[in-house]
């Protein structure tokens, strides 16, 4: 049964790790550039977390409102990110997203249409005009399936249900990776001239999350261990609307599209509390009465958006405020109501089922609630990390030569807070760029040397949980970490709690060295959980340490001991780097000065 520490070798020009939207798009591009591409994914192809994305993909196509263009999209993204974004990425993203979306249509995507037959776009939080191309509320599925069905004809070598354990370097440069296949537990060495990380996020570090088991921060941790910089790790997006009841579904996402279609948030007193707290930065763009809000969601171009469509960080905090003040729903959330539109439109039940089919089924089947007739109960859920691997805005290369990153595991585009819809476009725009530049790097640089000793040591380490005497249960350790992060480095933070968080992570690190696994290597989830711990602990520590360093509140990072924004901290990104002794160092990286053209755009958009 056991194969010891032997391994199989593979050779590619470009290795892509992760097969969600970013990984697939990178693979397609690298392959189109002539590279031989290996694509490694932890799940079956087409199951990655992109499949969960609901609302849409943001691109200034201007199909619904012709006032929209890349300059508005750019300024919306920067404002949403509180100007900590990598402005070059925000610029490229806004300019290139429309082409990337149209390209999906060329590959077979079937998005909802405008009356004149073009791609329909919907409203979303923080976007000035209707901008999200979508398919009902299953846009992510449409996107990943389109990329998958196109990609399988591109000659990619796909390795399904493989996990990467270690990146292998030759000098400064990354030249390969060690992984294992989950089904059989055999080791594999992937030699590659360039590697693209597209591993998604870190949601499994938290107890309440909309993320799947795969989101264990693998790319973040692999890059960190290989010496790459991580940036903005304090910025985590808690999506304002996750399910809160029943307990087993707590955290599952309720799309922002519900609010985009007219859904409103109310507290236990029936009040639309979002009108009470509209930030200054958005006052001019936000409706100050319910009627104007309704006109906005039904397409009135002169109306301003309802406060339910303010940025996610703000809406999440308002919900927490209601529940903490005793005005929450019975199960600790608030009410999200779309059924009220029956007052406004005929046949509202059919309309809701058509616009929000997955939400209708999700609540019907998991909570026994008919959203066309009654309100949902919702509360914040860990959804997305803005921070990640620090990359060059044009090429997506990290600070380690040959190592690229795209999608959620990269940082930069979203700054302190991501706008809904901007991650699907992120995957496309920067997946393509990462694939293109990784292929170019692979052509320019030859093969590196793979050190067999490094591989041997990494294999021994990964097999240790079977052999050691320890008595720690890896599942238990993961639960404890999730509780720790939820309680101490969650939506509302303070120094004392976060210090406890850091200490707790260090303690769990020690206990993880005693994690023991039974059975053998074939599809053994206990072993997989034990191996995931290392990555989860690294990203958790990086989040806590970065959050401690930023002594202000901004975007997704809110500190009750420093509740205001501090202009003195408006010009740096928090960077985490591994020291040569292996300790985690935190520093502040000045943001480069923005070009005059972009400064003018931001001024002009107000």
């Amino acid at each position, binding site marked *: 049964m056991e194969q010891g520490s032997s391994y199989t070798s593979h050779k590619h020009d470009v290795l892509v790790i992760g097969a969600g939207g970013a990984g697939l798009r990178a693979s397609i591009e690298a392959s189109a550039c002539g590279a031989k591409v290996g694509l490694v994914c932890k*799940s*079956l*192809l*087409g*199951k*990655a*977390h992109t*499949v*969960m994305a609901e609302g849409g993909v943001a691109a200034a196509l201007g199909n619904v409102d012709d006032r929209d263009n890349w300059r508005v999209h750019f300024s919306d993204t920067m404002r949403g990110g509180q100007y900590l974004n990598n402005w070059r990425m925000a610029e490229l993203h806004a300019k290139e997203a429309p082409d990337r979306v*149209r390209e999906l*249509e060329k*590959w*077979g995507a*079937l998005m*909802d*249409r405008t*009356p*004149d*037959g*073009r791609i*329909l776009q919907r409203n979303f939080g923080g976007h000035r005009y209707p901008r999200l191309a979508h*398919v*009902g509320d*299953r846009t992510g*599925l449409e996107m990943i*399936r389109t990329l998958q*069905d*196109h990609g*399988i*004809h591109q000659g990619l070598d796909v390795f*399904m249900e493989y996990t990467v354990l270690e990146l292998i370097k030759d000098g400064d440069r990354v030249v390969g990776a060690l992984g294992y296949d989950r*089904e059989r537990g055999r080791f594999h060495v992937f030699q590659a001239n360039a590697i693209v990380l597209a591993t998604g996020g870190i949601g499994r570090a938290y107890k309440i999350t909309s993320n*799947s*088991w*795969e989101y264990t921060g693998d790319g973040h941790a692999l890059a960190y261990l290989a010496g790459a910089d991580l940036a903005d790790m304090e910025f985590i997006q808690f999506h304002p609307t996750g399910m809160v009841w*029943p*307990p*087993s*579904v707590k955290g*599952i996402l309720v799309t922002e599209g519900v609010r985009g279609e007219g859904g409103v948030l109310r507290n236990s007193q029936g009040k639309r509390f979002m009108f009470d707290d509209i930030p200054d930065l958005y006052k001019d763009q936000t409706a100050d009465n319910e009627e104007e809000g309704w006109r906005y969601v039904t397409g009135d171009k002169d109306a301003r958006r309802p406060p339910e469509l303010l940025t996610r960080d703000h809406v999440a905090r308002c919900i927490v405020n209601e529940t903490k003040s005793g005005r929450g729903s019975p199960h600790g959330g608030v009410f999200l109501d779309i059924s009220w539109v029956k007052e406004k439109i005929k046949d509202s039940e059919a309309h809701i089922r058509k616009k929000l089919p*997955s939400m209708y*089924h*999700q609540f019907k*089947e*998991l909570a026994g609630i008919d959203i066309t007739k009654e309100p949902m109960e919702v509360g914040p859920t860990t959804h997305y990390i803005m921070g990640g691997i620090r990359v060059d805005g044009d090429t997506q290369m990290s600070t380690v030569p040959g190592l690229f990153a795209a999608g959620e595991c990269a940082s930069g585009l979203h700054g302190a807070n991501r706008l809904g819809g901007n991650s699907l476009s992120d995957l496309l725009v920067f997946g393509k760029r990462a694939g293109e530049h990784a292929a170019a790097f692979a052509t320019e640089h030859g093969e590196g040397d793979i050190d067999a000793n490094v591989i041997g040591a990494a294999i021994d380490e990964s097999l240790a949980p079977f052999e050691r005497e320890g008595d720690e*249960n*890896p*599942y*238990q350790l993961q*639960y404890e970490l999730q509780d720790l992060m939820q309680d101490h480095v969650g939506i509302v933070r303070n120094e004392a709690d976060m210090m406890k968080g850091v200490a707790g992570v260090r303690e769990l690190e020690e206990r993880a060295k005693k994690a023991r*696994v*039974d*059975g*053998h290597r*074939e*599809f*053994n*989830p*206990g*072993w997989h959980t034990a191996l995931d711990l290392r990555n989860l602990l690294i990203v958790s520590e990086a989040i806590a340490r970065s959050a401690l360093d930023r002594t202000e509140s901004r975007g997704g990072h809110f500190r009750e001991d420093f509740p205001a924004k501090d202009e003195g901290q408006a010009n740096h990104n928090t960077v985490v780097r591994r020291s040569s002794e292996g300790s985690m160092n935190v520093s502040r990286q000045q943001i480069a000065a923005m070009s005059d053209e972009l400064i003018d755009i931001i001024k002009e958009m107000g």
Partner: protein
Amino acid sequence: MSSGKTVSFWISRGEGDRTEFKEYSTTITEGMVVLDAVHQIQAESAPDLACRWNCKAGKCGSCSAEVNGKPALMCMTRMNDLDLSQPVSIEPMKAFPRIRDLVTDVSWNYAVKERIKKFNPRAPDSPDGTWRMQQADVERAQEFRKCIECFLCQDVCHVLREHGRHDRFGGPRHFVYTAALEMHPLDTENRLKGLKDTDGIGYCNITKCCTKVCPEHITITDNAIIPLKERVADEFYDPLTKLFRIFKPKREPRR
């Protein structure tokens, strides 16, 4: 259902042909689904119990299994919908070889999909390279594109499950996939020969079992398979068409 009830499970475990049911029990609370119970059993008493899952929200189609003999997504099967007076049985899908415990080797599906001719759009409608399509026209194919590739339809299909004709039958999933392409408003390809010869659509005798188990409620048989069967019949078996072909010059397949 009262909360905090102890429930027994019979879970099929093992590899290849060496399998057996093992009994486990765990505490079930309000709102739990079968996948929650499996995770709890993993954490409490069977750490190496193999099962696939991802989204836990019915969107990725990873946790397909047979619960009390019925093909279902474990994440969408609520415990309080089951008879808990006797042990709940959980088995892997039967139409595919078992790897371990609840995990099966579904790679055959990926191979079948790859041999189906890919999307091939007509020339763009507009000089800017875009197309115009009406909502009513996209909706027909959108129904098929809801498929989450859980393969429960494949599992329940007797051609695969009972007769094991994986060598000459693509199965409902791939008829839905083909229907999505064939009914795509922009597509110009013709896949009828593949449907007839390689994917053996003729083996389907429309028992509609696939439609019944589809968690996305796709009307597989009526909306996908039957129209495709009709097209195949028109193309290859219709006597009038055959007669016309004798007298008319050979034309390109339907465009």
